[in-house]
């Protein structure tokens, strides 16, 4: 660890234990499971992502990075899905028509879910290989949190482990 580095040195695939790789992969896999179960109530999978993140945040930086990235990407998708569900329920409950705007939005949401799924599968596979995978914007935020300058300064404050004097 150098004093003025702008980020913490990234663990390389061969340095990452299999357990960590699986936990990192789990951050995305869990999202798929919750996604299927939570489709009628999209905020459920957001809740699952939050729980997974807090459960794994103290394991390793690699796992925390993937869990945090999975959680962050889940937020906009959950909001989009929840709004689509709310719009559908409103139409059904209030007896309103399913307008062209609704269908445009519905297809739009479908496309974003598809994009999200494709990128999550890629991230899942990469995590299993012990690699980092960065989503646009969210990858940077997650990286900054666990490996960026703030993480560096926090790490620098920690008293390092040293060998016995004289070695």
């Amino acid at each position, binding site marked *: 660890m150098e004093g003025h580095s702008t980020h913490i040195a990234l663990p390389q695939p061969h340095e990452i234990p299999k357990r960590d790789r699986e936990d990192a992969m789990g951050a995305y896999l869990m999202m798929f499971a919750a996604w299927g179960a939570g489709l009628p109530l999209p905020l459920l999978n957001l809740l699952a992502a939050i729980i997974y993140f807090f459960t794994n945040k103290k394991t390793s930086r690699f796992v925390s990075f993937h869990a945090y990235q999975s959680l962050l990407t889940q937020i906009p998708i959950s909001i989009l899905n929840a709004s689509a569900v709310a719009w559908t329920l409103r139409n059904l*409950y209030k*007896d309103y*028509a*399913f307008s062209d705007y609704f269908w*445009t939005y519905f*297809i*739009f949401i479908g496309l974003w879910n598809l*994009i999200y799924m494709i990128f999550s599968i890629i991230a899942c596979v990469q995590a299993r290989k012990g690699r980092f995978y960065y989503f*646009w*914007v969210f990858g940077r935020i997650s990286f900054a949190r666990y490996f960026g300058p703030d993480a560096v300064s926090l790490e620098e404050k920690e008293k390092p482990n040293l060998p016995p004097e004289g070695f």
Partner: protein
Amino acid sequence: MNRTAGLSRELLFLGVLLLFTTFIGYAIQLYLSSELDENTQDIDRISLAWEMRFKTAIKQFIAADASLVENDELNGLIADLARRLRDHIKADHPYEIEILVVDSRMVNAMALPGGLIILYVPLIRLTETPEELAAVMAHELGHVIHRDPLRKMIRQMGIAATLALLRGDSSTLLENTIRNLLDLKYTRDQESAADDFALETLVAAGIDPIHFAAIMEKLDPGKGGGKSKLVKYLSTHPHRGERVEKARRASAQFASAGDDSTIDWPRVKKLLPSVFD
């Protein structure tokens, strides 16, 4: 500096993807809508003469197959209402509107090719004023003017079979089609357009659109109607709430002359065949 540039680039990509998916969503929606209206061009291939010949065939079929109500006073009053509406239709059209009253158990009204409108007795019985019946007729007139009955035939059978049928190439097909025609549904867009037409025509004819709202509420009582919301959604008619709301908005803008009909409607309804007949 590099970090900022990288973030800016990714935000830009995200924004472009956002716009792109919105555009794709809209394009797919447009495509699906146009699929429903694909018969728009085909309809022009059907001449008025063919349509009128088909109307005659339908009338013969109904006369032979259904129980027509032939009360001169009732039919005269209904024809007067139809005339009042017809005289205020803004669009040009070639149709001579003809109304048949059919004794049936169905609470329904129906527009058929050639300007033929069928009113079923239970529907008339449901109305409380002649204006409510006029509202239903105005809606059906909308289907007539938009040539929706032919469109639904084309949608169901395809243009080739429809043309063969209208040319009179197949008498068996004719009979089957007339039977099926009574069951076919319009698309939601067609229903909405007919509603808009009805409200416009009612206003032009000096009839308060609130009567449209009143009869819609009777035809589809909503929560007490028994059908689930989802089933209602899957049906082709626009939602009752929306239709009623639209009619109320039109009514709010309606400058009433206070000239609602003076017809003694309860007495007119007594001219209908009894439910025990």
